[in-house]
């Protein structure tokens, strides 16, 4: 989501500065359920107004701005429920908003006349990809988050650990890479270039966004749950 390293932010920084310096953080804002129109208020104030855990918000913001895969442990003040809520909202953003939007643009961009058999295949291919993402995220929503919710209540469900999830948290990007390659290298030229390139641009940024979403899961969420597991032996 963030393609460059940004400075670290503090609770007293202005929320509007955060967004203006790195507009990719808009996504984080909406996933924490923070709406715009916060004037000159600080991060702390805006979070309080929106009932968002400020520490967790800044941990995510600063992690994304770090542009690295730094394993975070012993994060003080991280609220697991707040982080989980963020991750859930991100899932519904991808499944219910971002991917359907790209699909609509894709259909518009490729020539879907009956002579163009490839167009039909591409859309089908995209659907197969979305299906995979959906399966992946539903698994997290149902299995992983349920497990963690029990953990938070001091109860360890048998036959599962966050390590199982971490080891199988595969990249679901292979299909998307294929789709990009086909459009870039092999899609027959002609037709509306502007629209197709624009769609491709969306696919790239969606992929990046998904990758940073996965980074938050791998490098903040998983280590935090591993620590929680140790406490509840």
């Amino acid at each position, binding site marked *: 989501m963030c393609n460059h390293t940004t400075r670290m932010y503090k609770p007293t920084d202005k929320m509007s500065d955060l967004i203006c310096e790195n507009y990719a953080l808009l996504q984080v804002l909406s996933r924490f359920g923070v709406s715009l129109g916060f004037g000159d208020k600080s991060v702390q104030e805006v979070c309080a107004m929106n009932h968002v855990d400020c520490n967790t918000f800044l941990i995510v913001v600063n992690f994304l701005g770090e542009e*690295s*895969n*730094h*394993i*975070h*442990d*012993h994060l003080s003040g991280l609220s697991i429920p707040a982080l989980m809520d963020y991750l859930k909202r991100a899932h519904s953003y991808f499944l219910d908003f971002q991917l359907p939007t790209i699909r609509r643009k894709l259909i518009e961009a490729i020539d879907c006349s009956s002579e163009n*058999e*490839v167009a039909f*295949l*591409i859309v*089908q*291919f995209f*659907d*197969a990809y979305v299906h995979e993402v959906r399966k992946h995220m539903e698994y997290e929503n149902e299995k992983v988050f349920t497990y963690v919710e029990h953990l938070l209540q001091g109860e360890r469900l048998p036959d599962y650990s966050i*390590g199982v999830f*971490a*080891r199988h*948290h595969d990249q679901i990007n*292979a*299909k998307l*890479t*294929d*789709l990009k*390659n*086909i459009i870039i290298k*092999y*899609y*027959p030229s002609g037709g509306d270039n502007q629209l197709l390139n624009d769609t491709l641009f969306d696919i790239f940024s969606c992929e990046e966004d998904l990758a940073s979403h996965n980074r938050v899961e*791998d490098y903040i969420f*998983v*280590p935090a749950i*591993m620590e929680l597991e140790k406490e509840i032996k």
Partner: protein
Amino acid sequence: MKSQETIYIAVAEKSMIVRSGLVSVLRRLPDLTIQVIEISSEEGLRHCMEAHKPQILVINPQFGGWFDVVAFKQEYPEAPMKFVSLIYTMVDASQLKGYDDSVGLFDDVDSLAHKILQLMNMAGEEDGESDSLSQREKEIVGCVVRGMTNKEIAEKLYISVHTVITHRRNITRKLQIHSAAGLTIYAIVNKLVELSEVKMNL
């Protein structure tokens, strides 16, 4: 040579300045696609080993007091990992047993890239090979998208299953297409098959 395969490297170093410096050099190495995992504590190292499978661990020999490579290898015997020491202070030679290589603060881009290629056994691989498919490979693409199994393809073309697998691996590498469905679209666009012949398994 351009290697598309991602190499996973974990960097365990407590100094943020040194760690970030090495990480940004690693990410900029030409011809290599490297994913770096940053580790700054013993706890983090354990998390990393539980959740990720780095191929190379670059570690300060004094990480956590003294990092014992031999004991570490015994703790994680299933991970075929290479160990590289990150040296920028005086270290006793006895502490460097068990490492596969070492890097220092003044290593340049070329020597760093060379070391990684050596460790990954990738030096000199795939040099000068073209990215277009051979006639045989095209035939195989045709078979794959018609839904034939490796065994069926082998029988049809009078080659061994092993050869089919090798061809398929080369096709994936050359085209950068990893799924059967992606291959199908490639085959149709390039007129290797007709849409009606394709067995849809998207």
